[in-house]
């Protein structure tokens, strides 16, 4: 899994220079603008290396380092100190602080990387992996001592090519993770003896497991566990009774899955957007997220035909109308020719809204294609 490097410096310039230096390597850069933010980030992220400036507002590097060394969970994280002062006295002072190394500004990337490379193993960044889509297999590990919850999750996600595996104890869960790291883990926070939280800490300190998103699950009224999980840095906390649609949406977001194929497709040189039976806030947000890049890709490739397919739509409400207006405006802004397909019941409902009262539509996809061809001619 990727190395995690925390940079703590009040200068955005330095933070960007450091991020740029590590760009060719497989690492994640986390940033803090002062000692207070740096300590919070260190607690949350448990980085492999901290690069810490000395002179900062709010809490300087020396105080930050002292607090890091005073925290049992953070004291062993190696620190490289950054300083603009190269004098003998300053260097001696830094050496006494117990840092692994120091670097004086100005510095070249190579010097920083050499010093970092002596402390952590820098690996070249692999080629960018293609983003997983909603149609790809995903493995979910559910750590829950109540089989009914595991079954509920399995049943709720059965329409997707996702593999749900349930483990009742953290020992079994740890073994499962070591054998084959899942894509995402759901942990019950009501496991006895705080085992759910202990498992999270274990996962975060593992080289392989630290990058896996971890959701906590707790009873809706258990605000203490909810708050504790959020503070510890769980990727998300979901409440029981579980809302499977909400869970699905949050899992998709955590895994950063490309769900555009649910709504977008290409038919020759025509981009088709087929809205589902109801345009919920989630649907509207998903469409909005993918529409702009799709339209821009169309323009870049010289295409300008777009069909908005409302065949599956059941109810026309304010949410749908708002989304429709936004879609049409975006197409208009890029001079894309749009044809709206609306069966008669949908068309009748659209007449009850001012924004869509006079919107021209056709009843089917064939008519839509012919209309676009006619516009292009």
């Amino acid at each position: 899994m990727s190395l995690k490097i925390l940079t703590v410096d009040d200068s955005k310039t330095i933070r960007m220079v450091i991020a740029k230096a590590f760009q060719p390597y497989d690492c994640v850069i986390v940033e803090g603008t002062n000692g207070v933010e740096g300590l919070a980030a260190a607690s949350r992220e448990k980085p492999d290396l901290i690069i810490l400036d000395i002179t900062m507002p709010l809490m300087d590097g020396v105080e930050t380092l002292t607090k890091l060394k005073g925290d049992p969970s953070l004291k062993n994280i190696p620190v490289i100190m950054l300083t603009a002062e190269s004098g003998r006295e300053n260097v001696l002072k830094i050496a006494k602080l117990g840092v692994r190394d120091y670097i004086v500004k100005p510095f070249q990337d190579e010097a920083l990387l050499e010093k970092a490379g002596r402390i952590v193993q820098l690996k070249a960044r692999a080629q960018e992996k293609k983003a997983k889509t909603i149609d790809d297999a995903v493995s979910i590990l559910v750590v829950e001592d109540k089989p009914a919850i595991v079954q509920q999750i399995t049943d709720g996600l059965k329409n997707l090519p996702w593999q749900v595996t349930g483990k009742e104890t953290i020992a079994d869960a740890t073994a499962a993770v070591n054998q084959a790291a899942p894509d995402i883990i759901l942990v019950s926070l009501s496991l006895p003896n705080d085992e759910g939280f202990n498992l999270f800490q274990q996962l975060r300190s593992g080289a392989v497991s630290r990058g896996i998103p971890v959701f906590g699950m707790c009873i809706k009224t258990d605000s203490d566990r909810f708050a504790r999980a959020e503070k510890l840095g769980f990727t998300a906390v979901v409440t029981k009774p579980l809302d499977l649609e909400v869970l699905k949406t949050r899992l998709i977001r955590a895994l950063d899955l490309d769900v555009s194929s649910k709504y977008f497709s290409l038919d020759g040189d025509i981009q088709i957007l087929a809205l589902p039976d109801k345009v919920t806030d989630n649907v509207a947000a998903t469409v909005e997220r993918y529409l702009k890049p799709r339209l821009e890709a169309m323009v870049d490739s010289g295409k300008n035909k777009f069909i908005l397919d409302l065949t599956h739509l059941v109810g026309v409400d304010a949410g749908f109308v708002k989304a429709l207006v936004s879609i049409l405006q975006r197409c208009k802004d890029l001079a894309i020719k749009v044809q709206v397909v609306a069966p008669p019941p949908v068309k009748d409902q659209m007449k009850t809204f001012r924004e869509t009262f006079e919107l021209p539509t056709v009843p089917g996809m064939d008519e839509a294609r012919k209309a676009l061809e006619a516009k292009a001619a």
Partner: protein
Amino acid sequence: MTTDGLQVKVRDFVTRSVSKVFETMLKMKLEVLDSSGGLSLEGDRVVGAVGFAGLATGVVYLQVTDPFGQILTNTLFGRKIATVSAPEEVNDVVGELSNMIGGNLKSYLSDYGLPCALSIPFITRGQSFAIQTKDGAWCERFAFRYQEHLALVQLCMKTN
């Protein structure tokens, strides 16, 4: 008051230090100019300043034009030269370069036996910038060129 011997050494150090900062961070080789000819910057400029106080007290200023500040910012951040960077980013870059020049000077003075503490950098923007000193402070001006751009450094200091 600052002795002649110290002035010569500091003058030489600042010239080398500014060149080193630009070369190390920006891979820009500066041409050191004769600043006695009254070189000045035209138009909007960004000025970064860092103070130091102790047995040596003073301020070191780095002045560049806004367009040169943009170039410095884009170079440091790995952006295309024509990119328009936000003023805050340019401020931060000029401030950080001043910080490095000031920090190195502070270290030099401390090793010389004149310990002092450094301030955080501060930025001024405008079209007309002049420094006036009093109480026998020594001021020195340094001029550098990179391609068609000028960078002016001004140091005012005294020893206590």
